[in-house]
């Protein structure tokens, strides 16, 4: 199984999928194969954190994980989950903005770190976010946006959380390369992040 983990960690896509086919055909334990994939993903996360891997590796790792899981899943019997999540996180790009890359990377990194992430997508209306906070009960909401047009919708989310009496139940994180302490204060959020690792560090401090 080390070969699977190494192929994932080293971005050897063809080798990884060929090995997966071979192991499954040989009757090896599918759960062990999936665990090896996850160990590979953890290594990818570490290399990203270390500044060795960047966006292309995270995206390719995600693609490899999906392709591998599709092969493995039919062989799995019963529960394949790897234990309960540490906490729930809701992420969305706010109304008026459609940038998704940063938000999605942040989501992937938080999932790799053991959190359950619900991604509401882009140009998400404030009312939808508030509804999801009620239903999904996240520990953290990550609001993303790159445009100056995103600042006021971010503020609207925090204001409406207050109105709905939900503000104390959830932490609010702002993400995007244009976010800084001025916008943090303006919006009334708890923390901001310009990179995907800050989210995880912050989440780990909460749980």
């Amino acid at each position: 199984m080390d070969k699977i983990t190494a192929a994932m960690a080293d971005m050897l896509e063809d080798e990884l999928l060929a090995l997966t086919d071979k192991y499954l055909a040989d009757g090896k334990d599918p759960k062990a194969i999936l665990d090896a994939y996850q160990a590979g993903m953890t290594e990818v996360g570490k290399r990203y954190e270390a500044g060795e891997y960047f966006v292309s590796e995270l995206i390719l790792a995600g693609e490899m994980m999906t392709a591998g899981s599709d092969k493995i899943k039919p062989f799995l019997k019963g529960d394949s989950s790897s234990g309960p999540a540490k906490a729930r996180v809701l992420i969305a790009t706010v109304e008026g903005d459609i940038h998704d890359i940063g938000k999605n990377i942040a989501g992937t990194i938080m999932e790799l770190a053991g959190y359950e992430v619900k991604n509401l997508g882009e140009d998400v209306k404030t009312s939808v976010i508030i509804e999801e906070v009620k239903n999904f009960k996240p520990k953290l909401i990550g609001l993303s946006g790159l445009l100056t047009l995103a600042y006021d919708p971010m503020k609207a989310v925090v204001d409406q959380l207050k109105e709905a009496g939900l503000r104390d139940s959830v932490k609010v994180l702002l993400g995007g390369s244009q976010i800084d302490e001025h916008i943090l204060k303006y919006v009334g959020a708890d923390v901001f992040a310009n990179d995907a690792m800050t989210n995880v560090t912050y989440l780990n401090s909460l749980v």
Partner: protein
Amino acid sequence: MTTWQEKRQARFDKWLNPDIPFTSPQTKADYQGRVGRLIDAIELKKNPDRVPIYPNYTYFPAYALGTTPKAVMSDVKLATEIWEKFIKEYGFDAFGIIGIVAPIPVMQALDYKLYQWPGTGGVPDDSIYRYFEHDWLEAAKEYDDLTLDPTDWWMRQYIPRFCGVLKGFTQLPNFTEFMELPNLAGFLAPFGLPEVQASLKKLMEVGSLTLEWMGSVGAMIGKLICDGYPPSAGGFAKAPFDTLSDTLRSMKTAMLDLRRNGDRMLAAMETLTPLAIKMAIEAIDKSGNPLVFMPLHKGADGFMSQAQFEKFYWPQLKKVFEGIIEAGGVPVPFAEGGYSQRMEYLNELPKGSVAWMIDRTDMAELKKKVGHNCCLIGNVPSSILHAGTPADVEVYVKKLMDDVAPGGGFMLATGTVTDDGRPEMIKAMIQSGLKYGKY
């Protein structure tokens, strides 16, 4: 042999002395004062009289004067009135025109699929346009088609995909086959096809519509120059990797291609690099303004590893810079986002040859590391402009002037492209620039 410095001096002379009837001796002096200020900041030979204030906005003039992007994108008369009024009221040393060269009637008539604009696809009337990222280059093997014959790929594959009414172009013949008798009939016959003819007719209609719009924009630009105001740039180019990754492929696919189809990308960029230079030079020849605006994207911090940057981004971008510089033009790259990991590369170009627009990179540190070599433009953050007070803006501008203005080679600008915004904050930036920017 003429050196790049000599070619550039000739372009600067032409830029300073356009063949245009100035409204008055005063407006001529104003125009030459503004252009001269920009040139002094770029060249790093001497301090200008004061720090120039450079524009970096899309639809801010529309918002500032109480209308919407949709309104100015729909009505060229309104658009040119708003722009002229804004430019004369605000006092930047040059003006940007991106907001008035995206006409909704033209985009509609073309069934233009690259963008969504106010009133389409859920974009509100008071919002700006949205770029629609997509894998227009549909399969990796098309990199090879593009590399072999970019115009053919553009015309018969790419254009029919993003312009709904030009779908008939897929049935066009290959133009390099049109030569001797054996190919004569084979080349011409497709032009008789109803789908091809429909597309050609539609293209002529859209052309007329656009010419009318651009006639008004051109007249406005001419009038503003006569009245003393220079446009902020005369040409446009992109980093070859950005053409692959924001123009032809979605970000996600381009990032996967880095790993899966790297050699194909490199070959395609070999083809695209001289084309980027050609596009820039043709535009500055025509406009008489030697500045080439180059918005940069995937080379910023965080997207690529240093190794990827050195293989897929910088060598090709550097060639575009060198090609523009060699022809006497001035690349004005916009390092949107952060460039902290890329600072050292800015010193690889000749002194005074490139003027960098800076967004989220530490200006004081940049000044220390590259300020002796290139002009820096920036970087009042959108966060302060949005959430701060005019006094906050003044504090930020004063610090910029202390850190970056000494020794010349600095222009004041917003760090982010200003889409919407608070008029009093942009005015505070300009007033602070005038107050603290004197040499």
